[in-house]
C-alpha cells in the first residue's frame, strides 16, 4: 500500500546551541526507550508476570476462595497427569484441531484461487467471504448449537428429509467434534482465504506466463506454480491455526447448556478442563498445572513447526 507522507510545513528553524544541543542529544538517546517503555511495562504486568505466576500457583495447593494453602511440589502435575479427563481433553483438543484445520486450509486455498481471478466487484466478494469473522465465537457456537441440535436441528432435519438417519451430534464423540470443527471453519476459512489470496497475488506473473508457454492448464498452473509458492504462507497459517486451535474454548463451551463438554466429556477441550478445575472445582493449583502443560504442548508444536519450516524453506520457495 503506497502512502504519501506529507512533511509538516517546516516551522521557523531556530538555531539551537549550548544547552539546547545537549538537550537534543539527551533526547536522541533517551526518547526511544521512553517510547517503547509503556509497552514493556504493561506487558511485564499483564503478560510476563502472570505467566511466571502461573508456574508458582501450579506448585501450590491453591483454592479459589481460600487462596494459597501451602506448597505442594509437583503434586498438582502428578494428579492432573493421572486423570483420565485430562488425557480425554488432550485427545479432544487435537481431534477438533485436526478435523477443523485440514479442510479449512484446503478450502481456504481453493477459495483464494477463485478470488484470485480477474473478478468484477472484487471488494464485495472479499468482504462477503469475511462476514463470519465479525460474528463472535459464542454467537457462532449458539447458532450452530441450534443447527446441529439432535432433535430439531436443521442438519438432522435435512438428513431425515432425504431418508437418512439423524446423527447424534451431542452424544457421539466424533460427530460432536465435526460439529465444533464446522464452527471453527465457518469463522476462519474466509479470513485465511484472504491471507492466501494476498500471497497468491504476490506470485510473480511471469511465472504463469512461463507455465502458459509450456502449455500448462489452469489446474496444472495451480498445482505446480501457485501451491509451491504459497508454502511459507501455508506454514504461517498452520502455526496461527495451531496456537488458536489448541486453546479452543468458546464454541465447545456453548455447544450444550451445561458447558462441560457433554455428559461423558465428549468434546471437553483443555481450556474447558482448566475452567472446570479452576472455577468448577475451585482448585486453581491444578488448573494452573494444566495451563502450564498446555503451554508446553503449544511450545513443542511451535518448535516442531519451526523445524519443518526451516527444512521446507531451505528447499526453495520465497521469503
Amino acid at each position, binding site marked *: 500500500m503506497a502512502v504519501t507522507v506529507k512533511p509538516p510545513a517546516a516551522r521557523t528553524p531556530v538555531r539551537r546551541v549550548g544547552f539546547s544541543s545537549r538537550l537534543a542529544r539527551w533526547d536522541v538517546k533517551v526518547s*526511544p526507550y521512553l517510547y517503547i517503555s509503556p509497552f514493556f511495562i504493561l506487558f511485564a504486568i499483564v503478560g510476563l508476570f502472570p505467566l511466571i505466576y502461573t508456574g508458582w500457583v501450579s506448585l501450590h495447593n491453591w483454592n479459589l476462595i481460600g487462596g494459597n494453602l501451602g506448597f505442594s511440589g509437583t503434586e498438582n502435575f502428578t494428579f492432573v497427569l493421572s486423570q483420565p479427563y485430562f488425557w480425554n481433553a488432550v485427545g479432544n483438543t487435537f481431534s477438533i484441531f485436526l478435523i477443523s484445520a485440514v479442510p479449512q486450509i484446503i478450502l481456504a486455498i481453493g477459495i483464494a484461487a477463485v478470488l484470485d481471478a480477474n473478478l468484477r466487484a472484487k471488494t464485495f466478494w472479499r468482504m462477503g467471504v469475511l462476514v463470519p469473522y465479525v460474528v463472535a465465537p*459464542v454467537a457462532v457456537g449458539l447458532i450452530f448449537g441450534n443447527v446441529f441440535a439432535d432433535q430439531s436441528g436443521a442438519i438432522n432435519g435435512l438428513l431425515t428429509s432425504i431418508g437418512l438417519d439423524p446423527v447424534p451430534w451431542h452424544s457421539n464423540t466424533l460427530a460432536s467434534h465435526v460439529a465444533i470443527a464446522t464452527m471453527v471453519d465457518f469463522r476462519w476459512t474466509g479470513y485465511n482465504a484472504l491471507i492466501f489470496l494476498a500471497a497468491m497475488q504476490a506470485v510473480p506473473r511471469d511465472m504463469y506466463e512461463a507455465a502458459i508457454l509450456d502449455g500448462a492448464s489452469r489446474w496444472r498452473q495451480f498445482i505446480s506454480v501457485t501451491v509451491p509458492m504459497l508454502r511459507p504462507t501455508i506454514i504461517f497459517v498452520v502455526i496461527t491455526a495451531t496456537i488458536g486451535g*489448541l486453546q479452543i474454548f468458546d464454541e465447545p463451551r456453548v455447544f450444550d447448556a451445561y458447558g462441560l463438554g457433554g455428559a461423558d466429556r465428549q468434546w471437553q477441550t483443555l481450556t474447558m478442563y482448566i475452567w472446570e478445575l479452576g472455577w468448577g472445582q475451585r482448585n486453581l493449583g491444578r488448573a494452573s498445572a494444566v495451563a502450564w502443560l498446555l503451554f508446553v504442548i503449544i511450545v513443542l508444536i511451535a518448535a516442531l513447526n519451526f523445524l519443518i519450516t526451516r527444512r521446507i524453506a531451505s528447499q526453495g520457495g520465497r521469503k
Partner: protein
Amino acid sequence: MTSVPMVEQTAGKRAAESARRRRDRGGAQAPRPARVRGRKTGGFNRRPGFVTYGLLGAVVLGSALPILWSVLVASHDSTAIVKGVPLIPGGNFFANAATVLDTIPFWKALGNSILVSTVTAASVVIFSSLAGFAFAKLRFRGSKALLVFVVATMAVPTQLGVIPLFIVMSKLGWTGTMGAVIIPGLVTAFGVFWMTQYLQDALPDELIEAVRMDGANMWQAFWHVALPAARPAAAMLALFTFVATWTNFFWPFIVLNAQNPTLPVALQQLQSARFVDYSVVLAGVVLSTIPLLIVFAVAGRHLVAGIMQGAVKG
C-alpha cells in the same frame, strides 16, 4: 441484510469502469466477456465466467446462511422449530427480542462492549505506534534483541495468564468491573510488530532526519511526521483490536458476573437456562451481532485490506 445496497453500489461502480474501458457491460449476459489472452491457455487477465461467480456465490451464501438462519429462527416462537425448518420469517422477532431484554442486561452489556472495545483499541494503537516508531526508525542499544523478544511473545497464548490475573483482580477487588477486562488488553505484541513493520517501509529515514535538522525534537518527529504516516496502519490495527476485543469471551467470562457482562458473556447466559428456547437465544445472537455487522459494512474493506497486507508482511 446490509449487503444489498452494497452490491448495487459496487456493481454500479464496476459498470461505469468497464464502460470506460469499452467493455461489455454485465458479466451475466456475456458468459465469457473480454478475453485478453488466449482462451485455451487460461490467461489470468481473462474475465472469469459463470463457474467462478457460481462458486463464489456459494461461498458467500455459506458465510451468510448461518446468520440468515438465526434471523429465521429468531422470528418464530419455540414451537415452530420443532415442527420443522422454517423457511420464511415469522412475526415473532420483537417478542423474542423483548424476552432477551428481560432475561439479560442487554443494554448494559452493549454499553460495556462498546466501552471495553473502544478503550482497548485506542490504547493498543497509541502504545503500538509509539513503540513501532522507536523500533522502526530510531537507533538505540538493544533494539534488535527487544524486537525479537516482542515477536517471540506473540506466540505465548495470553490465556495462560488467566489464573494469576484472576487472583490479582480479585485481590484488588476489581472482579466484575470493566477495568478487569480492559487492563490485560492495553498492549499487544502483535500491535507493536504491526506498526514496526509498517513504519519501516512507509516512513523514509530521510524524512525523520530532515525534520530533526529543522530543529524538531523526537516527540515532534513522532507527532508531526510518524503518526500521520502511520495513520492507515493505525486505523486497521484499531479495527482489528476492536473486533477481537468485542468477540472475546474466555477472560470476560471468568472475571465478570451476570449483572455486569460484555455481550458474549451475556449471550451465553441466555443458554444456561434449563430449558433452552432457541428462538430467544438466536434473537439474542441477532441483536448482539448487528452492531459489529454495521461496523463491518462501514469499514469492512479496510479489514480486508488489513488482512491481506498483514499476510504479505507476516
